[in-house]
């Protein structure tokens, strides 16, 4: 039951409820597959460093969860199929990373709020 962390970037053209629906879709998928969500963090709309699919901003969402390794395969398969997502990345956390996350809960990503794009 190692700890994982996954981040996905959604296209900015989504309306609010589509956004929430996408996020809840993946959270439910994780729960079904027996993963336990440790922490969720929505960075909101952020400017991308380079345009992806002709979009220059994106909604970032981070999910930290504990679960068996098999969850990742299904999760990434669902990510690949979803065209609302511009980019995704899931990472296996070693114990230093877990300690770091617990200490700086939700600080690193949402900390840089100042360059938030006022959509």
């Amino acid at each position, binding site marked *: 039951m190692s700890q994982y962390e996954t*981040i996905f*970037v959604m296209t900015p053209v989504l309306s609010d409820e589509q956004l929430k629906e996408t996020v809840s879709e993946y959270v439910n998928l994780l729960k079904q597959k027996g993963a336990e969500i440790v922490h969720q963090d929505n960075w909101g709309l952020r400017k*991308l*460093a*380079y345009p*992806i699919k002709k979009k220059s901003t*994106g909604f*970032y969402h*981070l999910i930290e969860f504990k679960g068996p390794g098999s969850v990742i395969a299904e999760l990434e398969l669902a990510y690949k199929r979803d065209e609302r997502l511009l*980019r995704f*990345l899931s*990472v296996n956390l*070693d114990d*230093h*990373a877990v*300690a*770091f996350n617990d200490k*700086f809960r939700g600080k*690193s*990503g949402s*900390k*840089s709020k100042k360059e938030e794009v006022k959509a």
Partner: protein
Amino acid sequence: MAAESDIRYLTPPSIEVKKDKYCRFKKSKIKHVDYKNPDYLMRFLNEQGKVLPRRLTGTSLKFQRKVSQSIKRARQLALLPFVADNLK
């Protein structure tokens, strides 16, 4: 023979004081380089967005690998650019 003091240098000889480089991660006991924080990772990039070599930053091999891996992850998530012209 011209005495030592008679020799006039055009430019004063700058004695390169050898300041020893240290690994900032070992010194401040940092154990994990986080890829979600672009501002912190920006220090390890030069103006074009390339990863700075160890001989300039002085970081140890173990942490240079962690830094470069987290930079590559940040680039994947478009938190950091792959190429940039005036990053700083």
